[in-house]
């Protein structure tokens, strides 16, 4: 039983934990109520009369929503029951399992399934796109509802298949902002007003020049501007003009190539604490306990709710850095993460699946999921999050204590417009990790810029079915 067997054993478990540093995209997670109750509900399987809807997901977030839907619609719950399959989102397990289940078909095939930003394109436009049913075939008047609910355009773009049909939509909008420490902004820029900070870091300027000027000012006062180069990467990645692959060929967008220099500049000048995202030191900076104080982080609303909020060292104003945060426009527009929902075109329960999908992704009424999601009324521990529907956002209030009472939606609504889904490819997760690896080699002085690019290209060619010059 030596190493051979154990090789299989540990595969997927915690890849995410150890490799978070290299995982660039993902869903934002809201812990919600009780999947455990769903597993006990399964006991009444034998009822038999109910039609089964198979749901595949990688967290219990969407299954929780579906449960909520059943709760709110007893008529629906009387007719259908949902069998949930949750497999952790690592390249080890979820995708191969979902792919095989889709390919195999039959009664155990997924009726509805989820994909996250890191691989959604595979299921909407790429290798697995042929399995996804257009929303219009689910009994949804898709064009009208998208228009009525003002669904974020990038979410629609990513969910549109090559025939021009919408096959997947998300419930959040993950446009990003710059989330900064008010006390540090006051000290360095003289004010903690979002407008002042945005001006200081070149908010909306589509260039990093002012950002680095600000970094110099911060350095003079003994602060860093961001925690590590990973923070910058998310902004760079999703603001570039081209994705990694254009017409089957590896392409290094000039903005992404420039990340090499930005990263080097940050490190050589000591503008950051040189942390790696999702590692101890990165979290310490949120609490203000790093080597030097850090002005801020790039991220969408979920970064505030799930990451900064938990790591700020407190739960009320005055504790840790709680309440000492603000959000402002970032130098370049970007988005980060998100979950998309799809239906299987071979499903025999399209109408029913359509109803659920509609409630989650398109319903902008106050009983729709997104309204509850945006206003923190979804369930126990619910936090406010930015959602896909502009209509919902317009009637929601994003003021939270964590941001000193600032209404974060003022910044996130325009941020969502910047987000565009045109620069993603289905291999992003892999290519990003190869790229970040070489960037780290270059910035830490292990190899030259040319070698880093050369090795990056050869690694892509070696590992993926992509043409490389």
């Amino acid at each position, binding site marked *: 039983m*030596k190493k051979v067997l154990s*090789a299989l054993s540990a595969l997927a478990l915690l890849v995410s*934990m150890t490799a978070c540093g290299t995982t660039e995209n993902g869903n934002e997670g809201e812990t919600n109520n009780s999947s455990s109750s769903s597993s006990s509900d399964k006991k009444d399987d034998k009822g038999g009369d109910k039609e089964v809807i198979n749901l595949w997901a990688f967290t219990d977030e969407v299954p929780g929503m579906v449960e909520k839907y059943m709760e709110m619609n007893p008529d629906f719950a009387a007719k259908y029951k949902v069998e949930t399959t949750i497999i952790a989102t690592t*390249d080890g397990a979820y995708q191969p399992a979902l792919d095989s289940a*889709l390919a195999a078909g039959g009664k155990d095939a997924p009726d509805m399934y989820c994909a996250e930003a890191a691989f959604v394109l595979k299921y909407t436009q790429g290798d697995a796109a042929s399995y996804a049913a257009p929303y219009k075939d689910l009994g949804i008047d898709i064009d009208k509802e998208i228009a009525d609910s003002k669904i974020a355009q990038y979410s629609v773009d990513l969910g549109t298949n090559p025939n021009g049909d919408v096959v997947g939509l998300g419930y959040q909008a993950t446009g990003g902002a710059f989330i900064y420490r008010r006390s540090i902004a006051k000290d360095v820029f003289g004010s903690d007003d979002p407008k002042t900070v945005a001006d200081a870091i070149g908010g909306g300027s589509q260039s990093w020049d002012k950002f680095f000027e600000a970094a110099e000012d911060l350095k003079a006062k003994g602060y860093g501007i961001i925690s590590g180069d990973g923070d910058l990467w998310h902004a760079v990645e999703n603001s570039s003009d081209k994705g990694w692959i254009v017409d089957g060929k590896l392409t290094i967008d000039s903005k992404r190539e420039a990340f090499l220099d930005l990263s080097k500049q940050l490190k050589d000048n000591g503008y950051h604490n040189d942390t790696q995202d999702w590692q101890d*030191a990165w979290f310490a900076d949120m609490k203000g306990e790093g080597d030097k104080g850090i002005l801020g982080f790039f991220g969408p609303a979920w970064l505030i709710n799930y990451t900064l909020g938990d790591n700020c060292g407190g739960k009320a104003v005055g504790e840790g850095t709680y309440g000492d945060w603000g959000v402002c426009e970032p130098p370049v527009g970007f988005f980060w993460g998100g979950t998309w929902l799809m239906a299987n075109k071979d499903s025999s329960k399209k109408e029913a699946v359509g109803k659920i999908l509609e409630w989650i992704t398109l319903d902008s009424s106050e009983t729709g999921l997104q309204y509850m999601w945006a206003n923190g009324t979804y369930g126990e521990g619910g936090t406010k999050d930015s959602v896909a529907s502009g209509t919902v956002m317009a009637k929601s209030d994003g003021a939270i204590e964590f941001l000193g009472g600032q209404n974060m939606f003022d910044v996130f609504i325009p941020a969502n417009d910047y987000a565009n889904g045109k620069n993603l490819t289905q291999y992003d*997760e892999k290519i990003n*990790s190869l790229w970040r690896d070489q960037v780290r*080699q270059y910035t830490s002085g292990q190899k030259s810029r040319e070698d880093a690019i050369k090795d990056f290209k050869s*690694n892509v060619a070696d590992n993926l079915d992509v043409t490389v010059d």
Partner: protein
Amino acid sequence: MARKQVKGISYAKYGYLFSIPFIVAFVIFSLYPTLYTATLGFTDCKGLGNNNWHFLSDPFENFKNVLSNNSFITSLKNTVAIWIMNFIPQITIALLLTAWFTSRSNEIKGKGFFKVVFYMPNIITAATVAILFNALFSYPVGPVNDILVSLGLRDAAYQFSVDKSASRIIVAFIQFWTWYGNTMIILISGVLGISPDIYEAAEIDGANGVQTFFKITIPNIKTVLLYNLVTSLVGGLNMYDIPKLYLNGGPDNATLTANVFIYNQAFSGSYMYNKAAAASMIMFVIISICSAILFWIMRDRDEAKIQKEIKAAKKAAKKGV
């Protein structure tokens, strides 16, 4: 003589009979998937849900492709380097501990406790191990860095995760640390199988502990030693979990092992099953050759001798009839 031969024939059927469960399970659960995989190596089967694949006009195209793939060559070198760095200390320390714990002259108190404890790292899932080591060597703050800086060994924290040699050494150390207890237990169980008579005879002859170990213990656990060498070799060349989970093959492919490479070909992105299959077959050939060499070096000369004697006896029996 004639009677014995009849008996030999009648017992042979039990050899087959007792192997049936293994063979049935093997054919269903192992042979089919393996042949399936091997076949893919000669095809153009790649991409998701591809049921329309064909054999290539040049059957060895994938093989050539893999052999000229720089990452694969790197991964082979890494695998060998990491295996050697892990195996030499592992077998040395396991043998040393075996000698101590089975020694009849130097009684180490609490050896039962040590034996039990040393296997324990093997109980922890690789994923947990990877998390723990990631935390230990984290940068810019982490336990190891804190210690290095506070002892004055370094002025500033060291970024272990971008240093290629450091990463290889850490992976090799983890492999060593997880498996030396396992190796030790197997060796000890081999020693326990040796008849005490032999030791008593040696003691009467006045052999000391060291002599006994090399002259009696080692030759007598040769079969178990061979088991250890072969499984370590196979396991080492198939090394997957720690390199994958600890730094995902990085930095700069420094801990990319052959099996991680194979996995990446098949699952992380392009679903190049054909290339993954070809690479597995290449690994299979390499491992088989290495194991064959081990078997040849460690071949049981006594057994061969006995076989010869049996043959000679049979011949004699025939002549006798």
